[in-house]
Structure formats: structure tokens, C-alpha cells
């Protein structure tokens, strides 16, 4: 990789930073709420700072805080974290072709700083790995913005936990950021159906321990996606069922026009 200065000045670095900027408000609200939650649960300020700067995984932090509060066995907390992070194992398989030309330590650093939003934004923009488009510069620009948009409010939340009101529902800004991102990934009927299946499966399986419902939902949606993509008999029938209503509407218009 080139020098640090070349990377930061690369136009793709700025593009990545700008794209991540559009969701930074949601990231920031979420970070703030997480910071407050850590301290309110009884974590000391130095340990809360250590957690935000090293663990750097919002959904894991929010999930394990209540467990730490009741002094749950450490292995249960770790198992929960592994399950919540299983999606990153899936994501890392997709990062591979983009990052393999870098040395091991850099690859692991890239993996460490990659969050959900970095991943989704990147894959949307660069579906195919290439080494002449500044893809990694774009990744680093997005990751830097993501890191700052998360850490600064998180630290503010830790230090100002007692004065920040949480009953306003500020944390919901993070959910809305994820919602907008979900919508931007819907490209056709197959992806829309996969999203509906994932959402329904997540609600239905919510009672599973360790937040395994997320893994169940991913598995269900991938199966439905493969079924439709595969063009097998079941997939064709689902696709034609999804298309039928539109066909009927078109046919209806044609009949009306003919009648007129």
C-alpha cells in the first residue's frame, strides 16, 4: 500500500468518507446510547472506555451489558458475542478477494475495523474485486468515518452518562439508519422477498438464546434467495406468483382499453 498521505488524499478515500457520512448521524446516536448504557450498568469509566476502544462492536456491547450486570458466567457472555458476530465470519469470506494481496497483519486490521455499515456500503459500490479502482482507499475512508462517528459520541456518552436523557428514544436513530440501508439494498423482487423472509424469521425465532435468531434469519433468507436464483421448479413458481399480480393488472388494463 502507498503511504498514509497518499491514501488519505486519494479521491476514493474521500468518496468512502462521504458515503459513510450519510449514515453517521445514526451511528453517532447509537454510539452515544451505547456509551450511556455501559456506564449506567455499573461499568467503571476506565473500563467503559477500554471496552469502546477495543471491543468496537456496538451490537455485542449492547447485548452483553445486561448479562455483565447480573454477573452471568463469562463463557455465556463470550458465547453470546460469538453468535452475534457470526455474521462477520460470513462477511470476512466476502472481504477475502479484496484484501488478499495485503500482508496478514494489514488484512487482520482491515477485518477488525470493518463494521456492518462499512461492509454493506462497500459491497454495494464494488460488487467485483479489482485493484485499479481505489477500492481499498474507499474502504479506509468509510472505515475512518465509521470509527470516528462511533467512538466520539460513545466517549461523550460514557463521560456524560448522568446528564443525557435516554427516554427520548435517541437509540432509534441507529435503527432508522439500518432501515434506510436495508431499503437501499432492495434491487428486485427476489431481494425484497429475502428481506421479508429474514425479518419474519427473526421475529419468529427471537426467543432463541444468544441472539441466534439473526443466524436463523440469514439462513432462511439465503435459502429463499438460492431457491429463486437457482431457477428450479419451486423457484420458478415463486417468481411467477410474485409476477402474476402485475400481469393481471396489465391484462386488466388491456381489457379495459379494448372495451373502450
Amino acid at each position, binding site marked *: 500500500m502507498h503511504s498514509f498521505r497518499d491514501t488519505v488524499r486519494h479521491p476514493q478515500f474521500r468518496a468512502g468518507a462521504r458515503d459513510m457520512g450519510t449514515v453517521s448521524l445514526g451511528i453517532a446516536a447509537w454510539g452515544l446510547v451505547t456509551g450511556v448504557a455501559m456506564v449506567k450498568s455499573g461499568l467503571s469509566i476506565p473500563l467503559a472506555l477500554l471496552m469502546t476502544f477495543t471491543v468496537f*462492536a456496538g451490537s455485542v456491547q449492547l447485548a452483553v451489558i445486561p448479562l455483565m450486570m447480573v454477573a452471568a458466567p463469562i463463557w455465556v457472555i463470550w458465547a453470546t458475542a460469538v453468535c452475534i458476530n457470526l455474521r462477520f465470519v460470513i462477511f470476512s469470506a466476502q472481504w477475502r478477494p479484496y484484501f488478499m494481496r495485503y500482508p496478514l497483519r494489514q488484512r*487482520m486490521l482491515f477485518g477488525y475495523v470493518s463494521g456492518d455499515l462499512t461492509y454493506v456500503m462497500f459491497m454495494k459500490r464494488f460488487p467485483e474485486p479489482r485493484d485499479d479502482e481505489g477500492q481499498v482507499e474507499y474502504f479506509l475512508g468509510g472505515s475512518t468515518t465509521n470509527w470516528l462517528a462511533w467512538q466520539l459520541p460513545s466517549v461523550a456518552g460514557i463521560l456524560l452518562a448522568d446528564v443525557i436523557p435516554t427516554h427520548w428514544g435517541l437509540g432509534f436513530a441507529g435503527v432508522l439508519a439500518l432501515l434506510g440501508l436495508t431499503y437501499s439494498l432492495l434491487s428486485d423482487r427476489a431481494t425484497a422477498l429475502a428481506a421479508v423472509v429474514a425479518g419474519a424469521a427473526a421475529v419468529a425465532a427471537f426467543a432463541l438464546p444468544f441472539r441466534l435468531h439473526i443466524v436463523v434469519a440469514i439462513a432462511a433468507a439465503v435459502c429463499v434467495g438460492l431457491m429463486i436464483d437457482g431457477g428450479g421448479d419451486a423457484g420458478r413458481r415463486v417468481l411467477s406468483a410474485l409476477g402474476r399480480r402485475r400481469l393481471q393488472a396489465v391484462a386488466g388494463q388491456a381489457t379495459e382499453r379494448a372495451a373502450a
Partner: protein
Amino acid sequence: MNDGYAFITIVGLVAITVFTRSFFLVSEKEMVLPDWVKRGLRYAPLAALAAVVVPEIVMTKGQLITTWQDARLYAVAVSTAYFFWRGGILGTIVSGMAVLIPLKLVMGW
């Protein structure tokens, strides 16, 4: 909270972050994913997002909500309308929060 307990827990969590996020980035060996796995993985990010978002909107304390007096539903409706009319994630967040905060503070939903 016991500081020693919290510290050990946090150290383990750091290891888990590093381990899961770089899981398939460590080995140098050529890794050939079967074609169907590659096609299936296309749906993974969308599914993971939907799986996180939907329960946050329609569930409270692990139960499906049964009331319409929930600020989240109206915030999501407005956000959704904004996204499909105008596009842009920043506006999606702002429009939803503009509905959510008054409903929560004034109506107590």
C-alpha cells in the same frame, strides 16, 4: 460490577471481535467457494440487516407488540415514505426521528 470480572470479559470480547471479523482473511491458502455458496452470500448482508431491524420495530421485551400506540410504527412509516419518495439515508433518519421524539415526549407512546 467487579472490575476483575469485567476486565477478563472485555479482553475475551476483543479476541472475539478480531477472530470473527478476520476469520476467512487469515489463511493464505487458495479458498474456492462453491458457486451456490457465492450466490447465497449475496443475500447475507440484506438478511442480517432485516433480522436486526425488524424485531427492533415490532417487538418490545421479546414480545410482538399488540398496540398501535407505539411511536416506532409511525416513525418507520414516515421514514419509509421519505426513502421511497426522495431517497437518501440522512433524510430517512431525520424524518423518522422528527415523528418519534414528539410522539414519545408529548403522547408518551
